[in-house]
């Protein structure tokens, strides 16, 4: 028994050190599940009666699944949305530009995304969350992950991240970063929105990542301007007692 244990441990170490060498480039596929009932229930500035009513009627299965893909190498990474074929078959929405680009070497971020119905290019130095590290461990997509936590006071949102110990690269979906390993799962407000890595394809050759193009019409703003714009919209939504997340990201 003991021998098997030692063997296993050795095996794990060897395979991991192999993985650690090659997993500085690859693609991570994410499912992004939106649970509208939970989002509504956790939107505390709405009327309590209405929130409870909507959660009672819609239950816990009111989910919408989006898909995302994170392409990374040692110095660059980019996150994009890809269409969910299951929904696209009967109704296809207009494709929006959505690129979350990070140049780690030059400490530069570039997001091309729609904010309040208009496309912006958010260009700045990289901004990451100030995470708190916790003690839980679990497996996501075949990787042992540790747990980190952050509380967003503006959105009244708890974020729990699971980052892979054997992928020592500070990346994550939707620009979430700043942890010692790749973020393979992100849980916001107890399942209101969950990013889960479904498939990880490592690449031996560093994948080529090109910086997304900023169109002429697209306005370039700083990260602080972007945050200010979002915060202003959240404040307006609070005054109108309507969910903020119809207009801007959750």
């Amino acid at each position, binding site marked *: 028994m003991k021998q098997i244990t030692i063997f296993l*441990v050795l095996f794990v170490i060897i395979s*991991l050190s192999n993985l650690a060498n090659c997993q500085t480039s690859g693609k991570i596929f994410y499912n992004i599940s939106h649970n509208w009932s939970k989002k509504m229930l956790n939107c505390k500035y709405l009327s309590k009666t209405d929130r409870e009513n909507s959660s009672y*009627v819609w239950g816990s299965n009111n989910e919408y699944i989006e898909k995302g893909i994170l392409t990374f190498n040692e110095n660059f990474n980019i996150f994009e949305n890809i269409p969910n*074929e299951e929904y696209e078959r*009967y*109704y296809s929405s207009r494709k929006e530009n959505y690129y979350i680009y990070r140049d780690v070497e030059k400490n530069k971020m570039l997001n091309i995304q729609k904010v309040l119905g*208009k496309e912006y290019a958010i260009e700045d130095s990289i901004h990451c969350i100030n995470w708190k590290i916790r003690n839980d*461990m679990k497996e996501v997509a075949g990787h042992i992950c540790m747990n980190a936590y952050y509380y967003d006071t503006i959105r009244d949102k708890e974020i729990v991240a699971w980052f892979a110990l054997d992928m020592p690269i500070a990346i994550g979906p939707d620009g979430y970063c700043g942890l010692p390993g790749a973020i393979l799962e992100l849980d916001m407000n107890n399942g209101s929105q969950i990013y889960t890595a479904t498939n990880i394809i490592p690449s031996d050759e560093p994948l080529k990542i090109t910086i997304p193009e900023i169109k002429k019409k697209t306005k370039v703003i700083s990260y602080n301007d972007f945050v200010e714009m979002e915060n202003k919209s959240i404040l307006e939504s609070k005054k109108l007692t309507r969910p903020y997340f119809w207009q801007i990201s959750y």
Partner: protein
Amino acid sequence: MIRKNLFLLIIIFISVLNVNSQISIIGQLKDTTNEFVPAATVMLLNSKDSALVNYTTSDSKGIFSFKNIKRAKYLLKISHVAFMPYQKTINPTEEEKEINLGLIKLSPIANFLMEVVIREAKAPIFIKGDTVEYDATTFKIPPGSTVEDLLKRLPGIEVDANGGITTMGKDVKTVYVDGKAFFGNDPTTVTQNLDAAAVKKVQVYNETTEQEKITGIKDNNKEKVMNLELKDEYKKGYFGKASVGYGWGENAANRWLAKGNFNYFTEKQQLSFMGYGNNINQSNVNWSDYSEFKGQSMRTGWDSGDFGFGGYGRRYFSYGYGYGGDGSGFSNNAGGGVNYNFYDKKIKFNASYFYTRTNTFSDTYSNRQTFLSDSIFWRIDTTGNDNTRNNHSFSTRFEYDFDSTNNLVLRADVSYSTTDRSNITTQLFQTSLFDDINLNSMKNDNGNNDFGVNALGIYTHKFKKKGRTFAISGNYDFSNGKSAENIDNLNEFYNLSPIEQIKFIVKNDEIDIDHTIKASILYVEPLSKQFTLQTFYNFRTSLRTNNNESRDPNNNSVDSLYLNYKNNLLYNRVGASLNFAYNGINIQAGGAFQNLQLNGISRQIATENKSNFPYSNGVPYFEADFELTDNLDLDLGYEYAVEEPNISYLFPMPNLSNNLYKTIGNPELDPERSHDASVRLSYWNQASMFNISLNGNASFSENNIVYNQTTNFVDSIGYVTISKPANVKGGNSFSTYLWSNFPIVKTILTMNVSLNGSISNSPVFINEMENNTNSKNAGGSLGINITAGEKLSFNAGASASATFTKYSINTDKNQNYMRYSANAGFKWQVFKKTFLEGNYSFSNYNNSKLDFNQNINNLNVSIRQVIGAKNQFEIRIAAMDLLNQNQYIRQIASVNYIEYRQSPTLARYYLLTVAYNLRGFEISNKSRNYF
């Protein structure tokens, strides 16, 4: 210069200070077999809140270091997939510049934890120091199992025959529940008696003895302790509310209401009860109460087995319990029911029963002017109505997901209703000179019993190939209606002396039975990522039998009124459509071929009529939705609608209740056919909150079924109208609607505007002469909402509409009528728990040709007070229609008549309501505002 030097000096001083306040930390990692541990994650956390300050990985020799770190108290945390997490507090002294942690030994994570718990059970595991925590909810155990059964399944925990527990080679002598000792020292009292379903987490850790707490020296041979953390029962619960109100209205009439609901739910079940009763014209259940009663089954009752155009799985939705009524008269209402839902990943089940009863009594006055090609006459009606309707409805639905590819839905609805109507009507006919022609008095008592059953089954299979789908449905519909009617009709013709009287008294019994069977098949084949082919087949057959017998006051059969008919319908449709979906462009185009066969036989005493017509045609279909820009949508739709004639048009029931108005059948009728097109354009701007949408609809009728009217003056009776359904060619209608909503001052003042217009041309034959009624309608409204802080809000609005009707056979009778209205209201949170609300509305109805002009002012005020520490009680005093002017008014301009109708309804009353809410009442002015 001096200043510049001083500045430099300060900078240098600060940097020196900084250097002094910075430290570095180094260390080396080895495992228990003395091998280096490379690639371990080493994190430096703020010791207060575990915030991540910095991190690194150990190199090939297990060495890690942090340089130039701010001097502060830290928590050093080392993680590696193969080793137990290591944690150490670092508290640098004032002088220390480099903290060398030396050799740190990491112990491997036990095999069972890594391989079995994390990888196989996929259970999150919590490891902190020597505590290991299992998530009990992720281990499957049969219902009714004890904690001991659960422990036997946890990797790394062993339970012997006597119930003794060991883990990692050590005995567990103590078991706590939620951190507390439970019935003495024997752990088996807990593990063999407590239900495993109650346990959320199992934690195993080393007991800290009192000695250790004092000395801080750890004893590695000590006992293990187990703690069972119980589930919080937040997923179970109940809520409900009840209210009773009492007051008085005009003529000292008592006004009352009572209603209540109670809901109980667990993680997978919802059970709800509801009841109501009142005499304030609230005859149905409102949306919010209804949705709370139905719970999760609210969104599963939409099944339709009639596959066809408009996208696979399109579902229709109807809601409501209770009988709406048209707002005239006074009603006493009662109802109640029970609903049960069960749902998990595979099964969704719902059963519900509801009973409603409404008794309405009303008095209606109407004034109608009818014009023929050469003459005009007036009719003045007064009607007294007393209707009672009881309805029982039971519905159940079962949905089962065999797996992710096979789904079955079964549902059944049963309803039984009884209706008792009695009404007394007098119709006074006058010539254009306001001379009385005749007076027609009718007394009618009618009792109905209707029983209906509907059963539906839908099976759907999704193939391995994404998007390939097959579905089949079957439907059985049965209805059985019985009616008994007592008719007492007296016509008095005034122009003769003595007055000519015609009496007509008859008792009529009718039985109507219908069986319908439907089946549909759908197959969807994806051709490429953008193109999908959808094919369908629909089958429907129905058999309807109707028997009508009449008896005179001497109980003799009235042969002329006997009618028995049997009608067989067979319908087949096969169709296909091609769907294109890509980047905001969605188009569906297709066509179907349908065949309809009607075989009918009708018997009267002496004659037998057969009607038999097969009807085949092709129908095209088109629908498109374009997202033109990110904020601009364009929807287009076209449909060729073909609808079979209603069976009662072919073999009409002899309409006996009125001797002066008769309907006859037309077995030669063709189906109705029309081309319907629609367009919708909408724009919104999320930043400025500006929304606008424009809708247009057009319908071109190829073949329309209308009631042609023949009205003749019959001597010694009066004007007698015979109405016969017939096909007419032509006719069209257009309508357009614009709506916009935008803020003038964001979050404070918003405005909404709407405009609508419509034009219709409808041909119909009046006394065998074609009359084209051209009707134009234009209207608009303007409204504002003001939110003056969190506690006060106002709204105000005004609307106007005008209708212009032209008649081709009698242009003198062209009609214009107008309607104006205005309203204003406020909601004010006077004190923390006191709310004052009021609204006022004004309406004017006007028709110069009928010399009709009526103003109605309506004012309602209410105050409510929430009471109690948990806000569970509420008292409300309401004064409704303070000016006592409420009444029901309708204006009609039809084919060859114009009319207005008035009826008294519930007007001024005062009501005191006391309500109790288990969850507590809301104490804010917040309104529902989801979008």
